[in-house]
């Protein structure tokens, strides 16, 4: 028997039927066709599936779909405002902070969550906050620079 769940995704009400063992990641990707959130490991080690649940940064592979009733979930698909990119998205493009791009949605969600809590992070704080988001292409250099540059811009804005 599947479970009926209803929650808010990027501000919109959504409903889905899911099995007990389906993770939030499975529900987003397989039941709601929201494939911007990526699976890199399914064990909470890589951060590619990062989303925000009620304002908290989580690996969506470590939460179950059945836990989502009444929750507010934010994924990469909700980050831009229509065709206006979030400052982090824009800065990632300008800094060439992505190569293959598979980790990018998770990194962006995690970085947004950091800047909401700490608008003026140090390089070390950014590195530790993003330590749960694996990137194999960039060596993190341009990612860290893009986050710091975004923070500076947003403070100035």
């Amino acid at each position, binding site marked *: 028997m599947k479970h009926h769940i209803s929650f808010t995704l990027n501000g919109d009400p959504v409903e889905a039927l899911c099995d007990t063992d389906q993770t939030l990641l499975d529900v987003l990707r397989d039941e709601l066709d929201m494939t911007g959130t990526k699976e890199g490991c399914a064990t909470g080690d890589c951060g590619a599936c990062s989303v925000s649940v009620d304002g908290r940064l989580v690996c969506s592979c470590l939460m179950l779909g059945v836990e989502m009733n009444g929750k507010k979930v934010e994924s990469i*698909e909700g980050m831009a405002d229509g065709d206006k990119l979030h400052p982090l998205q824009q800065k990632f493009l300008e800094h*060439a902070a992505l190569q293959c*791009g*598979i980790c990018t949605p998770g990194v962006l969600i995690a970085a947004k969550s950091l800047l909401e809590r700490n608008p003026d992070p140090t390089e070390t704080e950014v590195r530790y906050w*993003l330590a749960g988001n694996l990137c*194999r292409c960039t*060596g993190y250099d*341009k990612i860290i620079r893009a986050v710091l540059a975004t923070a500076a811009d947003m403070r100035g804005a």
Partner: protein
Amino acid sequence: MQEKVGNPPKDGDFKWVGTNAIRPDGVEKVTGQARYGADLNMAGQLTGLVLRSPHPHARIVKIDTSKAEALAGVKAIITSDDFEEQDPTLAAAGEMMVNYLDVSRNVIACDKVLYEGHALAAVAATSKSIAKKALKLIEVEYELLPHVIDPVEAMQADAPILHEDMITAGVNPPPEKPSNISKQMEFALGDIDKGFADADLIIEREFKTQPVHQGYIEPHACLANVTADNQAELWVTTQGHWIVRAHCARLLGWDISKVRVTSSEIGGGFGGKTVVYLEPLALALSKKSGRPVKMTMSREDTIRATGPTSGAVVKVKIGASKDGRITAGQADMIYQAGAFQGSPVAQGAMTAFAPYELDNVKVTGLDVVSNRPKVAAYRAPGAPISEYAVECVIDEIAGKLGIDPIDLRLKNAAKEGTQTAYGPKLGPIGMIETLEATQATEHYKTPLGPNQGRGVASGFWYNIGGQTTVMMALNEDGSFNLTIGTPDIGGLRASMALMAAEELGVDYKSIRPIIGDTQQLGYNFLTGGSRACFSSGMATVEAAREIIQEACSRAAKLWELPEEAVDYKDGWIRPAGDNAGAHEPISIAEIGRMAGKTGGAIIGNAKINAQGAAPSLGQHLVDVEVDPETGKVSVIRYTVIQDAGRAIHPAYVEGQYQGGAAQGIGWALNEEYIYGDDGKLQNASFLDYRIPVASDLPMIDTVIVEVPNPNHPYGVRGVGETAIVPPMGAIANAVADATGVRFSELPMSPPKVLKQLDLARAANDADLKM
């Protein structure tokens, strides 16, 4: 057609080349809209799962699928019986020679399983949970066999034999008995004995490296749809969809024209996505079930059953005169191939001493199989291992002779005209330029603190070209479609559009580059060997030039002038010579608008076998701090200095340098495959197979050196691979500088470093600094 694009590079003043334009595929990647291997679904699709061996070595006595087949929702089950019997001789797959018997048996085991995780059956069902249940219902009877994991143990006379027909190649006369040594090879130059006789100092050391995984964050994934008459479509994350097509068609016995392969966005490859694993299984399951079949690999299976690159044992002996001239270099290398032959030992042997101009070189290599996953290419395959060992000994020689390690390298540097041990004479290369740039960095001159050390190492990768097809079309509004066939892993589309914009003298944004599928273009070899920017760039330039030529011919027709009487510049065509000013200039957009009336679509079709790839040389400079109490090595400062030929998109070139360095840091300090006595892998997860995370690394500074490749219209060399060659040597040399102790095993993880420090303390080692 080659001569046309083989012009010497132009000097300076480019409008687009060398700028950091926003990548054309950028917005879709930061918004989650880009579609990767697992992001496509089809109506009615089934989920495919693979049954894998729990044993490292066993004979398959029987596979009974009857109970699984009876489960409601199971639509197809396949085993090796569903694949064509392959011949063990090498066959051409595009430009590669492939042993299809091995490819077939690695994709799906036949008779024997050769490593834990070896695939032996696959199921397609209406849901993942039903597919999982079906896997449990497949009954396999195994006859367990003794296993061997370590390559040196695998070479012993009493070792379990993986392939009863494996007779070592390259030995004359051939051995009578089978062994786990698949081949033996040698590269030599000059007289090695004389070289050592001339030496004032000889250092010989043995190094050991562990297998490391490419570690792409996107696991393997594909979606196959096959009709009853074998019209097949495959969506797949791959570095080379023509290679996937060739392998799948061969394994299934289908015509190549029936298999249409589309490369999805690719979430990292580093060489690991140049082979097939799930793809033939998904096609076979789709054919059998008559439904689309989607397969995605778990991270655990990705680590357990794909990649990695070889672990190795490398013995290096180098002789030098007192003034620092290297008189002889010798390396004897054992590379483990995994369960099937084919380690990158030949590439390791070719590149071992390649940064240097040496008179006397001898390198031998052995390719050894054991009960581990078959190795796959990993960024400069083979070279990081052999060059790590050589660079450590070079550094030790510099230390013993009291010569600055960069000066010693300068004294022996390869340059234009150097005869390599592996064959070719080198063209212009940037060994000397990158060494001098390294000495000039502020980093090299900055004093170190306590427990800190500095290391430097060189790296060489030869780079390749090969078959490449590109199509460009001028649209009716003056914009351009650019279709290339080498998957874009790190910004390739940006570089292609920059070169096309430069050639055409039009706005970068007027060009939309995409990766075409196997039906849309002629054959393309894969993205690998640092060839994509070089080869597809060469073809893009040729396609753009064809468009210019065709546009000029149309204008000439309109003006009733001979074709040679018109000129093209920056998107405008003008009458030239005696006819200058006879007509108003006409824009290429206008030519595009009128194409229908002047002869039909205006297209540039480039089909080349790109020649003239040139090696990229790099130097890595690293500072480490070693904790004397825990043995932890922290990288505190890092600079990559590398020759790009010409950086088309400098930020993505830097990205290649930084990414290669980071992977090398993981290889040097953390990453390894850990097996139990039971022959099973103990760390098949990103928690236990720990790649560097953001908090492990410092910023990685870069210096882009440009010694143009004369064979490329913009001077491009490949840059992707060289960047992973020097880190292990540079870090080992830095750790030696910090501790006073030489480390000869990777990874230099805290327990290993601490153990060696403790041994040195116990022995009152006079060189020990901590």
